């Protein structure tokens, strides 16, 4: 983890007022929990927030970032209303957040199996008010953080926990699909958070935190009053089920040896299971490279992999983070912080039949602009391919395929084309949340409406 302040800030971020859940990188290993709460009484809701405040952490890690736990509290637009936030303030939030994730389903590709009508309750309903999460390197410390959180809501009658989900890193350190994740993290000016790609300049703080200039030179749209917006950010929280058996079956069906299978999977992801990027290791996995945080994200595409013969332009990691690749538009305007965390039991190695278990990830996608970051990435980069010259093609792993899609893998003499792609992921639910700064949380807890 590279969270220590070694760069010279050009803007002064009020880092201790920013919730740790925004900028603090995920530990590895990690264990954690998500709660969804419904606020039935605004006064009780605020009382709970007041009790919760001492348990909510701000800022980055201390001297030893891997040895503590932190809790975060995020609020949906309905949650702000349930807490009694005045109408003019509610109306000052950007449209996507006001509408909520379910209302944006068509735009972001939550269709078919992922349609909000089929989401797991309470997602997509008006009951999702607060999303509280805790993350820790180990179970003992997590329990301490959770105890503080539980104390806050258990003593409050008008607030109810209506959904919870345990998450933890699998013993392999990999996702349910079998790949190391959590590798790429953008650098953020003035925050002390160093990017994991030394070849990319840090992004303006306003790409991630409200109240500071962003990459366009403007301030991100600020909800009012100022005290509520400042040092806040937005989260797209999603529960994504992974169809691990279908993934393995597809790979087996379309290859004729374990080596081919590993290569095809890597071509779809853009990395090998160890995390080694195809652009740096095109022919085989390289565990030493994958395990080395100084090298496993130290690459660009344009100079050595422009055509995508190593990492296809359509591979998952290249679509969602095209770096300097030749694409339509300006990639710097479409970065997010990704914090994927795994839930459910792993499907044992070698098993090709679905065991019916629910497994996947709780994905938290963080940025100051839901529309030109999370939603743009979903609509232009994940669920279309015109930006890389493959109009109509989708992300092989994260795209919502309907069984008819194709995926192009550049190779000589002729490209490989995967046909009749099935979906390997299903959205089980999600919501747009506002992650207020600590002062803003206090302001919310002290509302008098």
């Amino acid at each position: 983890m590279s969270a220590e302040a070694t760069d010279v800030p050009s803007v002064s971020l009020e880092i201790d007022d920013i919730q740790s859940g925004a900028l603090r990188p995920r530990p590895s290993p990690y264990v954690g929990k998500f709660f969804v709460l419904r606020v039935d009484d605004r006064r009780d809701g605020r009382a709970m927030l007041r009790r919760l405040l001492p348990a909510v952490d701000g800022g980055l890690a201390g001297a030893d970032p891997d040895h503590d736990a932190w809790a975060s509290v995020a609020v949906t637009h309905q949650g702000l209303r349930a807490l009694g936030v005045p109408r003019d303030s509610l109306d000052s939030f950007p449209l996507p957040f006001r509408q909520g994730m379910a209302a944006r389903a068509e735009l972001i590709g939550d269709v078919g199996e992922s349609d909000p009508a089929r989401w797991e309750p309470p997602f997509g309903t008006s009951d999702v008010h607060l999303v509280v999460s805790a993350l820790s390197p180990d179970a003992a410390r997590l329990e301490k953080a959770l105890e503080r959180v539980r104390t806050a809501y258990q003593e409050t009658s008008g607030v109810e926990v209506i959904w919870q989900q345990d998450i933890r890193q699998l013993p392999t350190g990999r996702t349910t699909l079998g790949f190391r994740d959590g590798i790429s993290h953008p650098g953020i000016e003035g925050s002390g958070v160093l990017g994991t790609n030394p070849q990319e300049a840090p992004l303006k703080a306003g790409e991630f935190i409200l109240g500071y200039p962003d990459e366009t030179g403007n301030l991100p749209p600020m909800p009012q009053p100022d005290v509520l917006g400042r040092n806040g950010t937005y989260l797209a929280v999603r529960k994504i089920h992974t169809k691990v058996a279908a993934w393995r079956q597809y790979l087996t069906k379309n290859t004729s040896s374990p080596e081919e299978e590993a290569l095809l999977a890597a071509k779809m992801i853009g990395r090998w299971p160890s995390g080694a990027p195809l652009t740096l290791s095109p022919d085989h996995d390289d565990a030493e490279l994958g395990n080395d945080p100084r090298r496993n994200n130290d690459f660009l595409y344009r100079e050595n992999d422009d055509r995508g013969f190593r990492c296809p332009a359509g591979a998952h990691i290249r679509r969602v983070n095209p770096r300097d690749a030749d694409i339509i538009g300006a990639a710097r305007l479409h970065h997010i912080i990704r914090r994927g965390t795994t839930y459910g039991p792993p499907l044992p190695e070698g098993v090709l039949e679905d065991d019916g278990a629910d497994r996947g990830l709780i994905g938290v996608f963080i940025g100051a602009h839901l529309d030109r970051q999370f939603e743009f990435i979903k609509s232009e980069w994940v669920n279309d391919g015109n930006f890389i010259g493959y109009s109509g093609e989708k992300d092989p792993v994260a795209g919502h395929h309907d069984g008819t899609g194709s995926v192009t893998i550049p190779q000589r003499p002729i490209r490989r084309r995967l046909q009749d792609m099935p979906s390997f992921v299903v959205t089980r639910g999600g919501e747009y949340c506002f992650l207020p700064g600590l002062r803003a949380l206090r302001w919310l807890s002290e509302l008098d409406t």
Partner: protein
Amino acid sequence: MAAMGGATQSAQPERPGRTDGVAGEFTVFCRIKPGHADELREVLDELMDAMGTGDRAALRQIGTLHDARHVIFDNDTQLLFASVFDGSWDTYIDDFATTVVGERFDRVFSHTEGFPGVKDPNVKEWFVAQQEPALVFVSSYPDLTVKQIWKDQRVNEAFQAVLDSSEFQAALENPANKELLASPAFQKLLDQAAG
């Protein structure tokens, strides 16, 4: 209040303008600042000259623009900008603003009334206010994006070059290739090669 505030609104703010297949038209009428018509004409001449010398880098950079025109009319009082984009014109407007394309937009529209600047957060709303949606918009190639057209052009040029090569003639006459030549997919290719 239990109902979701905007749940009944459409996902995207409604952008006017007609679409046909993958492309949409974007037509705006702007009032030219009094006395600015000649300066504007100079800017447009410069842009046109740059195109004349083959400088299409800006168009490549956009990658979604089929065509565009600027017309000064109504006694030097109005500017028409008519264009056709893949998808919606505003999807990439923030992106364009950070490039040379944005500079060009600024140079042109700064001679029109009320233009806030291409980097202004409200520039989309300003354009929408000047926009007049077409009553008719049709495309002869509704399935093709600009990116695909470029690719198709490169493929066809390469294909024609193959047809012109003596090696290809020889391959056609080689009995070893009989099976390939007879396959339906290759027959389709040969059908295009015939004329």
